[in-house]
């Protein structure tokens, strides 16, 4: 989907938000391998943007280019109003980056890592100590502050990593796969941290390979595949592009199975498992109408599961030669989050 058709996000007052990050036609290759093949982005200030894609899709390369860590072969980008090619210093002064691999100094303590950042941001000794104490407290690292960072667990290292990123009070933060390799509890802690950043008005550029993470955190999501943006939109918009969502009903009684199949009609039958598959976006409205029809037919399913589209569905759909337009369901405005609110 060409990004030129994407609507300009509006703020509450109806004016378009200024872009924190914008890019046109970013390209990058390593040798004869093309990693980014013309990327266009426009990320409004104060929003969370997720770049979603499988390993090797070019997510990290995009972050590296936008954070001035490496240079693009072609295209242009502005971050915080500074051109990444002609004013990398201006970009660096406005951003904070937490890379995919832990960017802490393992040989020194957590507190020393924080003070190092304070020194590099040219804070005075006093405010450096104050910021360090605040952030260690906020990220629950006070007890570990005097231990070498290499002794930290994965979750603690990521927390320290983000705390270090926040020392300079950046307005734009890049988080490259912030939860990859974390256990579920640390993952949720990280989500909470990211939400808090957003409530402070920070713009977050996030990469992830998990749809649920993008869904959970991002205002807008771009799916990166093979160096190109395959689709861009809100989580709801993306899900509607994908025909993977369905409800599955399983029966133990063959006669109940047959009468349900007759009553519901638009189903895919699995006679061996006695299971029916009904295309659905999993909304409350669709679920209720399905249950109503089952009730009026007098059948009861033994098991009901709602399947929403997952990353696999997204990729199967978006990397197929044509993207189905799915007019039947996506025209119903009541499904989108904004309208329900």
């Amino acid at each position, binding site marked *: 989907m060409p990004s030129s058709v994407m609507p300009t996000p509006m703020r509450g007052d109806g004016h378009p938000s200024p872009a924190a990050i914008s890019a046109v036609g970013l390209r990058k290759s390593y040798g004869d391998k093309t990693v980014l093949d013309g990327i266009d982005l426009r990320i409004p200030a104060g929003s969370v943007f997720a770049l979603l894609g499988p390993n090797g899709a070019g997510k990290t390369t995009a972050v590296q280019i936008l954070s*001035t860590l*490496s240079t693009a072969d072609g295209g242009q980008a502005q971050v915080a109003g500074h051109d990444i090619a002609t004013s990398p210093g201006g970009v660096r002064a406005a*951003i904070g980056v937490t890379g995919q691999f832990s960017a802490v100094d393992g040989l020194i303590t957590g507190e020393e890592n924080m003070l190092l950042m304070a020194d590099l941001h040219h804070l005075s000794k006093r405010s450096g100590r104050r910021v360090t104490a605040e952030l260690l407290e906020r990220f629950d690292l006070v007890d570990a502050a005097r231990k070498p960072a290499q002794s930290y667990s994965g979750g603690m290292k990521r927390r320290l990593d983000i705390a270090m990123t926040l020392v300079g009070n950046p307005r734009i933060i890049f988080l490259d796969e912030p939860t990859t390799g974390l256990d579920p509890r640390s993952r949720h802690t990280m989500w909470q941290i990211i939400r808090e950043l957003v409530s402070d008005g920070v713009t977050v550029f996030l990469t992830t390979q998990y749809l649920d993470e993008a869904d959970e955190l991002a205002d807008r999501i771009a799916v990166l595949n093979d160096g190109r943006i395959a689709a861009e939109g809100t989580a709801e918009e993306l899900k509607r592009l994908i025909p993977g969502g369905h409800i599955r009903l399983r029966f133990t009684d063959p006669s109940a199975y047959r009468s349900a199949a007759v009553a519901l009609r638009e189903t895919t039958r699995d006679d061996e498992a006695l299971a029916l598959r009904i295309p659905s976006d999993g909304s409350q409205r669709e679920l209720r109408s399905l249950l109503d029809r089952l009730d009026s037919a007098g059948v009861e399913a033994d098991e009901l599961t709602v399947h929403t589209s997952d990353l696999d569905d997204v990729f199967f759909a978006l990397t197929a030669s044509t993207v189905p337009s799915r007019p039947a369901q996506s025209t119903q405005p009541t499904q989108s989050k904004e309208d329900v609110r």
Partner: protein
Amino acid sequence: MSSLSLAVRDSSTMLRRNLLHARRYPSMTLNLLLTPVMLLLLFVYIFGDVMSAGIGHGGADRSDYLAYLVPGILMLTIGGTTIGSAVSVATDMTEGIVARFRTMAIHRGAVLIGHVVGSVLQCVMSVVLVGAVAVAIGFRATDATALEWLLAVGLLVLVSLALTWIAVGMGLSSPNAEAASNNALPLMVLPLLSSAFVPVDAMPGWFQPIAEYQPFTPAIETLRGLLLGTEIGHNGWLAVAWCVGLAALGYVWSRSLFDRDPR
């Protein structure tokens, strides 16, 4: 903040970080000191009688050989210490922290300058420690004037600086710490092939030009001359030229390696 004071401030922050590493994990620095100290003791106490016969003018004894040996051992100490610098630079580059530094608004050269200044300070400390061992077993340079001492210290610092920049380049071009320690091995091997242990004219004829014009021999001969009053001749200029050349080469090499795209 002007760009010079920014450079000084960021570089000294990086230097503090490197010195913190060295202070907290002194084992590598100390391990690298073992080699020169062992060689010193080995050549003086085990091979000393034979070696002293080899340094010419008939009546040389073990203490003459000690005097001959110490300048070379001090240069070898510098070579060994800079291997440690190559390893710590390579280790640093494999850590995400340097990627973080690159995305921060800090002076571009600060990371490398911090490493270089830290390494030179470590070299000076190592030379002092090994020198103390030498003095403890009887080395004396009492005839040297204050100016000669000053020049000797200057030479040691200059050699440290030159070898450090080369070691930093070696560290940057190595994918990991193990590779760095292998790649930097010439810094320890070259002194063995110099006039550190035996005079060049005692070596096989085909090898003499190699031994004579490699960087360590002029530096060792110059140091010997300054401390012990032996003939320096053209070695002084040769040593300075080598140092300036190696430092410049290492600097340009390191900067270009550091500025390349990560991957």
